[in-house]
């Protein structure tokens, strides 16, 4: 394993952590599809 491997592992891990956090937050609040006129959006401010 070289430095490039380590960098990639760190980046992928960070991306996954961010993705999981965002997904859990969206799933809890009903998810925002971006259509503000029709969607209630996040219930958490």
């Amino acid at each position, binding site marked *: 394993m070289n430095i490039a491997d380590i960098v990639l592992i760190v980046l992928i891990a960070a991306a996954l952590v961010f993705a999981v956090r965002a997904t859990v937050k969206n799933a809890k609040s*009903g998810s925002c599809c971006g259509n503000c006129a029709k969607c209630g*959006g996040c*219930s958490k401010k």
Partner: protein
Amino acid sequence: METLKNIKIGETVRVEKVGGEGALRQHFLDMGLIPGAEVTLVKYAPMGDPMELRLHGYELTLRLADADEIEVCPVTDKKEEVREKKKKQKTEHPGLGEGGRFHAKGDGVPLEKGTVIRFALVGNQNCGKTTLFNRLTGSKQHVGNFPGVTVDRKDGSIIGHDDTLITDLPGIYSMSPYSSEEIVSRNFVLNEKPHAIINIVDVTNIERNLYLTMQLLEMNIPMVVALNMMDELTSNGGSIDINHMEKRLGVPVVPISAAKNKGIEELVEHAMHVAYYQERPLRYDFCDKTENGGAVHRCLHGISHLIEDHVEAIGMPLRFVTSKVIEDDPLVIEKLDLDQNEIETMEHIVSQMEKERGLDRSSAIADMRFRFIHRLCDDTVNKPAESKEHIRSRRIDKVLTGKYTAIPAFILIMGLVFFLTFNVIGAFLQDLFEMGVDKATELTDKALVHAHVNTVIHDLVIDGIFAGVGSVLSFLPVIVTLFFFLSMLEDSGYIARVAFFMDKLLRKVGLSGRSIVPLLIGFGCSVPAVMSTRTLPSERDRKMTILLTPFMSCTAKLPIYAFFVNAFFPKRGGFIMVGLYLLGIVTGILAAYLFKGTLFRGEAVPFVMELPNYRLPAAKNVAQLLWEKAKDFLQRAFTVILIATVVVWFLQSFDTHLNMVSDAGDSILAGIAGIFAPVMSPVGLGDWRILVALISGFMAKESVVSTLEILYSGSVGAAMTSLSAGCLLVFSLLYTPCVAAIAAVKRELGKKYALAVVVWQCGVAWVVTLIIRAVLIAIGVS
């Protein structure tokens, strides 16, 4: 006695009596269907029901059954003639809401320095509220929810005034409790006590819009009236004596055009002034003591004095409460906690008023307000006979809502939308995107080889992440294009027409025409479709519509259809795409019949809806909407789909001992899916890889394709048969919506319904796929 149901097209009649009861009847009155109002029948919907009526200068739809409750008599000369241009009498500028010479030192009760000034933006639907809100706040908005109810809430601060918070309340016609929006707006004003109200009024429908204005004035909160669409009025030869109107209403009146960004600065200045100095309306008493013997005037003032101690105790505006009490508003009466003697006294006073006035109480109050409005408009408004916009709308409607042309036009328009999306604009942009993704993959691959990256990690990045996420990203142009067309159709006013002529059809399945809006939006995405059911006034209709939206094939499924159609049915692509959409609709109709006879017995909500003039949607609004949609799609691609891709890659690359496998059939994933495969075998989807892809589709539909690509190592076309591809298409069409949609259902209807949707949709998908599979085998597909 003749009723509104029996009049002929083009005939004008005068309303004699408004039947019906409860909140619906109050809604009729609030929309202007009051005794004495003149109503013209414009047309019937293509299927004969509902009818389109013209009154107070705007169009309203009404079902025949509801129209039968309204007694009418013929008129020979219409009131709605062009009035001769009145001789202009110069009215001195009252200067309400202004500083300088109009504001003496010491006037008003200024707020403390540093207070965040809170505004409520209130107005009818279709009055340009969203456009004004966007102008005032720009991108500094936050979308949320009113607590306890499923109604939208948007907050933002006014550009250039960080110490402000403006809340966009739902579009409403009155402060009566007909719908949850009206209750929410009322409660917001009464409970959250904004420092000021900005009431936006559409001057092209000024009489109906001012009805809400009058109720807002009764709340005795500092207020500014923004007369919107002034450009349309003046370009048609109309005008408004602003000074005179300001003097009569007792609040600042500011002419604006939100679409053309005119008058906004002046509006903000006035709003800030009245809010800061807490300058309340100079009048809220609009009853005339000389009119009809002063019956309504005496009733209002008599009851005011009777209940003023109770009103003070609950901290509500006296005049507002008085009129609501007379209208028998149950929410207000309950709060007052009157004793029996007071209730009886009130009843006597109101009965006396009804006897003297010759109208029931609600009609009398509505009539009082409209009389004031008519006098005000007679004196201050020069209306053109018919605006260019209305003439244009009538001409367009001859085709788009014509008896024999409405439905063909609808099919043509929707067909054109889908053709442009999938075959022209969307397809062209998609090819460009795909080229970009391929190039990025190639460059990354070279870079990883050059850096001597470990093969496992290389595999994850290129065959996992790039293949998975990349295959989905290329569908962004198609999805954005479809959303563009759907929002253009809605913002232009066409979707309201679709609701009008689809009402009779939708009633057959137990819904009202309004439900067409969420169902059409469902073709874009189920999440806003579910959210938009909030505009339906009936809980029953809302639940049923939500349960039907999964049958409207959303854009996220497009990658699945496009992929399999290109791989297995290239010559019949269009036919199969259309067939899939129709299958979804037909299955939805069958489900609706089932719901109608079981879970949702009963009639659909009454259909009372305004038909606005056709308008070109504001480019900025549409652009903002599309940007938000694209942003959301990209966010999902780099969150949910990324997770699904990495998880699938891991589970299919390693066995239970965490050793890399050379054959995916030995992987953890194969083991898990193998447990459920027998359930899916009868429907031709017993392959564990297909099952895994379908499970990943629960996260995001777009990931079905990316998962299949990974699991079949890029050779899906060779590994599957046409029969199994066909079965997969049907199952994907109908099975559970994605987790985002289920979460939206959970938020609207609760956990039980959310779980029920998952199970129900999977069950329906299984059954229908079984049937379709038998049909495909019978016609020789293998």
